């Protein structure tokens, strides 16, 4: 065994291996904090896809508010769950689509269009007799103090997509 055939000495070989293994270990330790540090950057694109197809064709939306129910996956920390959502959808006098959240701004019950026979043409909250006009504005003198929130919406391929609901200020 001559020196030319084995240019790597025992010392060099050990140095190389230890550096290599050490490098892998360091990379292993560094990768998680790095991933966490840049995580928000990677997630930004997902904000755009918050719209859900609620299985309602644009043509089926009338002047009469109708209830649509759909489901979204919600991640709350480590806990993933399916949340069912509801909206009241109709076209206003200008033909614009309106999607109202049914969550009563008083204490959070679910309101219904003409939910009470005594109050036609109103959204009605069964819990404490709260009333809203068709545009979602609360009727003065009933418990709610703010209008119903409005969902962001868009039409794609003739189907209605709903996004987040936005609260509105006091009337």
């Amino acid at each position: 065994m001559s020196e030319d055939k084995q240019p790597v000495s025992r010392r060099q070989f050990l140095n190389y291996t230890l550096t290599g293994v050490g490098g892998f270990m360091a990379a292993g330790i560094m990768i998680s904090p790095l991933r966490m540090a840049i995580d928000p950057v990677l997630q930004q694109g997902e904000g755009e896809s918050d719209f859900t197809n609620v299985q309602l064709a644009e043509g089926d939306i009338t002047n009469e508010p109708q209830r649509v129910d759909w489901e979204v996956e919600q991640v709350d920390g480590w806990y993933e769950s399916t949340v069912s959502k509801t909206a009241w959808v109709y076209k206003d006098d200008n033909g614009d689509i309106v999607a109202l959240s049914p969550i009563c701004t008083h204490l959070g019950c679910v309101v219904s269009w003409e939910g009470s026979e005594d109050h036609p043409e109103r959204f009605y909250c069964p819990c404490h007799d709260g009333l809203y006009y068709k545009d979602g504005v609360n009727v003065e003198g009933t418990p709610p103090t703010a209008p119903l929130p409005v969902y962001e919406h868009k039409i794609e391929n003739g189907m209605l997509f709903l996004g987040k609901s936005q609260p509105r200020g006091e009337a």
Partner: protein
Amino acid sequence: MYTMKWVKHDLQHYVQEKEYIDTIIIPLLPFQLSNESNLEKDALQNELLSVFNRELEKELTGRVLLAPDYHYLASADKQVELERLDTWVNDIQTQPFPFVFFITSDAEWKKIEQKLGGNLLWLPFIATESMKPSEVQSAVRTQVKEVTGLIRSYWKG
């Protein structure tokens, strides 16, 4: 997201808005592992009742508090359970809750309904494994609508 369950966040809300929340719903859920031929059926009833309770509570959040589930052995003596349940109701009644509802799909409660310290809502669920989740959802929703109407009729007096 509004809810009204026996969890810290909701109860903060409850304490503030107590005057508006006058109704409590207590789910009665039987449990057993001894009767193997009925295991799946019983578990399915429990699951459906839980889904139902969640949906019902969501509809009526502002006036209804959903109590934690009351579990009992399916084979247990109902007289004994009745006494234990009364201690729950007595504790609950230290707060103003004029409307107490029990929700169950266990038919045995129906027989001793009058002895309960509240109104019994007995809901036999008709669902099979062949039903799709979406079909179960819509079936449950229809039932929620019916029961919401029933609870409202109690409120109207």
